[in-house]
């Protein structure tokens, strides 16, 4: 029995660009899958195929138990989509926007009105409810857009980079909303460029690059593959590098790397903050003055480097957004030797 969102061998090409090159995943009911990857990786194309916006060239897609290719209109009754742009009419008020979406989900005008009021309350938009959305801040628009996707409390939700372009405070707020949503039993597919976001919200993560899933697992599993955390130290005096290196080697789980010109030393570790405190004490005991020290956790770039050997190359958000084909094309230009990349991927276990 497939989960609430199921994809098998999805292929979508735009011209000679394979935006999706055989993507599979299966999201059990009530869980969150994070599609993690840079712009142009095929995340948006995958979402568009599953939300009936785009017809895949090949493959199978089932959402909420309904075949997406055979019964797209049935699927539309069971899903909510919050895209990369806050897709709200800026000349309509928040209330009018939600009412309209409710009615287009085939709710009665009266019910749509009541529901709009409920959502505005829940999303902290009640004060701004009767102002045109044009006057909203970026965070408010995102919240309104998310509210619009939740008008019918659909069992399956799709969010395409829900926090791209938001400041940290608004991002935190949106995360809280998404967590509550999931605790209510909604199945969610979320795309993101941020490992941290996938880490916070997703039960399972698929790392996508060039239209393929190149790794999957929980966030911990992925981080373990990436090599986990590292301690990074910048010493004040160049002559202390050797001693500091000795100290770090004692705590590390691998080779210490040294950048002479920046006086920076890095060593992979396990043990987190507690270990960091020990390192600081030991350096202090040896009389080594430090400019900076920190525990560094793997980022999306680290995941990518370890999985593919190249950087994620996230492009400018505005340019890459919503246009996988274009994003891919731009990327192809930067990397004329795509075959080499493919080879690297194959080589990575």
């Amino acid at each position, binding site marked *: 029995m497939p989960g609430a969102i199921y994809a098998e061998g999805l292929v979508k090409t735009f011209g000679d660009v394979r935006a999706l090159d055989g993507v599979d995943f299966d999201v059990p009911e009530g869980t969150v899958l994070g599609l993690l990857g840079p712009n142009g990786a095929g995340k948006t194309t995958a979402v568009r195929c599953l939300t009936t916006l785009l017809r895949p060239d090949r493959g199978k897609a089932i959402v909420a138990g309904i075949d997406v290719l055979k019964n797209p209109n049935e699927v539309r009754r069971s899903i909510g989509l919050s895209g990369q742009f806050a*897709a709200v009419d800026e000349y309509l008020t928040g209330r009018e926007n939600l009412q309209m979406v409710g009615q287009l989900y*085939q709710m009665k005008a009266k019910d749509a009105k009541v529901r709009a009021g409920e959502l505005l309350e829940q999303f902290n938009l009640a004060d701004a409810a009767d102002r045109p959305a044009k006057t909203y801040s970026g965070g408010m628009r995102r919240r309104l857009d998310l509210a619009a996707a939740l008008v019918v*409390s659909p069992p399956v939700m799709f969010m395409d980079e829900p926090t791209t372009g938001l400041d940290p405070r608004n991002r935190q707020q949106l995360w809280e909303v998404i967590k509550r949503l999931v605790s209510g039993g909604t199945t969610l597919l979320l795309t993101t460029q941020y490992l941290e976001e996938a880490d916070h919200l997703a039960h399972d993560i698929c790392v996508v690059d060039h239209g393929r899933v190149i790794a999957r697992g929980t966030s911990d599993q992925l981080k373990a593959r990436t090599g986990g955390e590292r301690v990074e130290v910048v010493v004040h005096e160049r002559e202390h590098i050797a001693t500091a290196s000795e100290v770090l080697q004692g705590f590390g789980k691998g080779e210490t790397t040294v950048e002479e010109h920046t006086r920076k030393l890095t060593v992979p570790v396990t043990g987190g903050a507690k270990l960091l405190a020990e390192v600081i004490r030991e350096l202090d005991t040896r009389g080594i003055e430090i400019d900076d020290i920190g525990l560094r956790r793997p980022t999306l770039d680290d995941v990518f480097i370890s999985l593919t050997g190249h950087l994620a190359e996230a492009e400018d958000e505005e340019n890459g957004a919503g246009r996988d084909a274009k994003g891919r094309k731009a990327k192809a230009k930067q990397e004329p030797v795509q075959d080499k990349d493919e080879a690297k991927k194959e080589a990575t276990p």
Partner: protein
Amino acid sequence: MSVVSDTVRVAQPGSAIGQSVRDSLVVARRNLIRMSRIPEMLIFGLIQPIMFVVLFSYVFGGSMTIAGSNDPGTYREFLMAGIFAQTVTFATAGAGAGIADDMHKGLIDRFRSLPMARGAVLTGRTLADLVQTAFTLVVLAVVALLVGWRTHTSVGEVLGAFGLLLLAGYAFTWIGALIGLSVRTPEAATSGGLIWLFPVTFVSNAFVFTGQMTPWLRHVADWNPFSATVQACRELFGNPGVSQSDAWPMQHPVWASLIYSILIIVIFRTLAVRKYRSATA
């Protein structure tokens, strides 16, 4: 707070046509609210035809011979049907720009992910444009009366003429819808919706008497769908300058205008809805 509400129920769909009408009206309402909040668009839409009335009647008025008369008053009566018809066709640009804007802002994606009737987004937009066109026509008719335009027929015939104008305007907004879905930006939709209208409205009987054109040009003008509507209006208003050409649309302008408009709606609605279904922002 609970994000998930138990009170929400999605109604089962009624008849397909019922749903289509209902959804179209919801979208039309949205576009009308929008238009009412951008009054400057409406005002610019009015200034242009009023300017044409004034410019054409006072600049060209004295040098035009219509139905054997070179009295500026005669030209003014002749001209109005042309201005009315040109004004309704210019709604094309508004529809195109609006839909292109919706594409650009991701709204079309949202609509396409909703369980709504497929053609409703476009039908709603064209219906809203129809309301705007009707409003523009009323204002323009008042201006026309002020500069001396008169009708010389029954109320029924005059209303019939306005009916034909609205139908023609509605037909042209479907061309605009297709343009809006085919271009990348609202700006491109505006200019793309306008440029081809200039030859269409000028190679016609709208502003000049076609009898004075070279034969091939006159032939084009006589069969131009736009000319049929202008000719029908002139006839129904009892205004001077009705073409005596043997071309069928000039002999049966009311029928020709009806047939042309319906053909345009059928063809461009089909194309536009098909395009919408595969639209990609």
